């Protein structure tokens, strides 16, 4: 038994039933396997997009809004499914309709959070918790109603909870490339405006920038990413792709442009690695694997990142004492 097969057995891969691990590795590396490259491309693009737009979510202090959008997307899936089934039984599982429903309620959830925060005495974190649990609870109820329908097409709705990248096909890859290009394009166009918004919103407002509009656009595009990510990572974990890569990239740079590029790279790598592993070892769920890879990269960055990594901090402290007293931070 080769060491690769040993590793395969350790991962729980069904070596006897399918081709050997070495064989699958080879096919993966040479892009021979259609069933692998569609999920791989979709998820890598998703990771890159989420990382880039997530930079501004993190810098704006809105990290958890991504979480709300993800959880609030669930009732949209349930509603879209039930409405379609009512209109024409058997048609419920139409991906575009489900994603549109998810986007709508995801945005509604984010909107509710901001409204509660702004117009009530409840604090932002309380508003997040309230909206997140309300929408998610509502979504679970709707899904359990859907389960009782006897059309059979409700099967797989639960895949949106924790993602199932193996089911991604070429059309999903195309969709994610198109939407990813739109979101990244918008981010690049608005790069300096969003940077200003995140750094100093009062100054931005005094300059005449529509702060509320810029904020809404940031949250809206994050919601698009979150909804796209449901298929591969699942809506419960999609926030990880929006937040972890930017947080990791921050350890490597003091320049927001580099941070965005780094976050995109880390996001794409995490997505690709997660899909690769779960295609080699199909029993391992994809979404959580992607998150684990992202988290591992965050851990490495936390320790080694040369701007603010823990290992470098001591030296940075020393360096600051070389600065004349009046210039010290």
């Amino acid at each position, binding site marked *: 038994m080769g060491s690769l097969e040993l590793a395969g057995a350790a991962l729980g891969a069904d070596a006897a039933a399918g081709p050997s691990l070495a064989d699958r590795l080879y096919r993966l590396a040479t892009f021979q396997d259609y069933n692998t490259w569609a999920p791989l491309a979709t998820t890598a693009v998703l990771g890159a997009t989420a990382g880039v737009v997530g930079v501004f979510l993190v810098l704006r202090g809105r990290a958890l809004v991504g979480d709300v959008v993800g959880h609030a997307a669930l009732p949209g899936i349930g509603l879209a499914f039930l409405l379609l089934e009512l209109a024409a039984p058997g048609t419920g599982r139409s991906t575009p309709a489900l994603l549109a429903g998810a986007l709508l309620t995801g945005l509604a959830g984010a909107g509710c959070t901001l409204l509660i925060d702004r117009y009530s005495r409840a604090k932002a974190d309380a508003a997040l918790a309230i909206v997140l649990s309300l929408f998610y609870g509502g979504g679970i109820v709707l899904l359990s109603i859907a389960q009782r329908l006897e059309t059979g097409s409700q099967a797989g709705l639960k895949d949106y909870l924790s993602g199932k990248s193996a089911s991604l096909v070429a059309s999903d890859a195309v969709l994610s490339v198109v939407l990813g290009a739109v979101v990244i394009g918008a981010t690049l166009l608005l790069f300096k*405006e969003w940077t200003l918004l995140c750094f100093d919103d*009062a100054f931005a407002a*005094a300059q005449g*920038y529509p702060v509320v509009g810029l904020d809404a656009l940031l949250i809206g595009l994050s919601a698009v990413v979150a909804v796209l990510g449901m298929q591969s990572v699942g809506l419960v974990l999609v926030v990880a792709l929006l937040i972890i890569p930017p947080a990791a990239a921050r350890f490597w740079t003091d320049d927001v442009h580099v941070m965005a590029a780094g976050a995109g790279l880390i996001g794409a790598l995490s997505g690709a690695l997660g899909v690769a592993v779960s295609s080699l070892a199909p029993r391992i769920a994809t979404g959580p694997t992607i998150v684990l890879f992202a988290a591992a990269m965050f851990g490495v960055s936390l320790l080694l990142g040369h701007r603010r990594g823990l290992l470098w901090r001591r030296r940075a402290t020393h360096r600051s004492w070389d600065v004349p007293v009046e210039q010290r*931070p």
Partner: protein
Amino acid sequence: MTDPSPASSVNGPRSHARGSPWPPLATGPASAASAVLSHPEHAPTAPLSIHDLTVAYHRKPVVWDVEYEAPAGKLIAIVGPNGAGKSTLLKACLGLVPVVSGQAWFFGRPFREVRGRVAYVPQRTSVDWDFPVSALDVVTMGLYRQIGWFRPVTRKYREQAREALARVGLADFAARQISQLSGGQQQRVFLARALVQKADLYLMDEPFAGVDAATEQAILSLLRSLRDTGRTAVVVHHDLETVRDYFDEVLLLNVRLVASGPVSQVFTATNLRQTYGGKLAILDQVGERMAEGV
């Protein structure tokens, strides 16, 4: 000057009577100025005139019925105790917080029509200095409006920002990440961001707070050079000791406007006691010094 009674102002926001129309301790010259500014058309060039401005947070008034006209080409201090509404007054003028009533005019027009002539310097502590940008990046932000939506920052604008950094003595710190700057240097970066806007009116929120002596002098000489070229600065200030040396005009604020006008006339021990409620020991020292004519 033709109509000394603000109660008869044309679209009078004062028509909904609430108590005395006048700030309690307004001195002669300021009162006369206030009367004029009830009619903005009488003083179209005043860099800033504030009319009947009232701001409330959660129904509690923080700025009450403030009436003031800033003369052009002066350095003007807003002075008052904590919670007196000094920052809020600036923000309300700029439309950053909702007002209950009243309005502010800049050069005789609403703010949105003359944004380019007004530069705002927020409190240094209002932003996260760990943000991943350099000193030069922050200064460039003052040019974003000029650069326009969607367009990248070109070398031309970076050069302008570099010049502004040089004017505040930070030419060598352009590439420094902003968390690597001292508090005073950060404040000067904020000033440079206002300078690149080449505005005629500068609204500054506590620029002297927590800065080192070198920065204090740098800011002061900058303010003076602005004034010498006809610019106006309205500065929220906390240090009573330096008001006389640094400023031409003062606005004493404690939710209400206590007094406003030239420092020599308005910055008196009586007015200060009125503003601070007579609690601060420093007031007596300042009062004594002024009595001695120091």
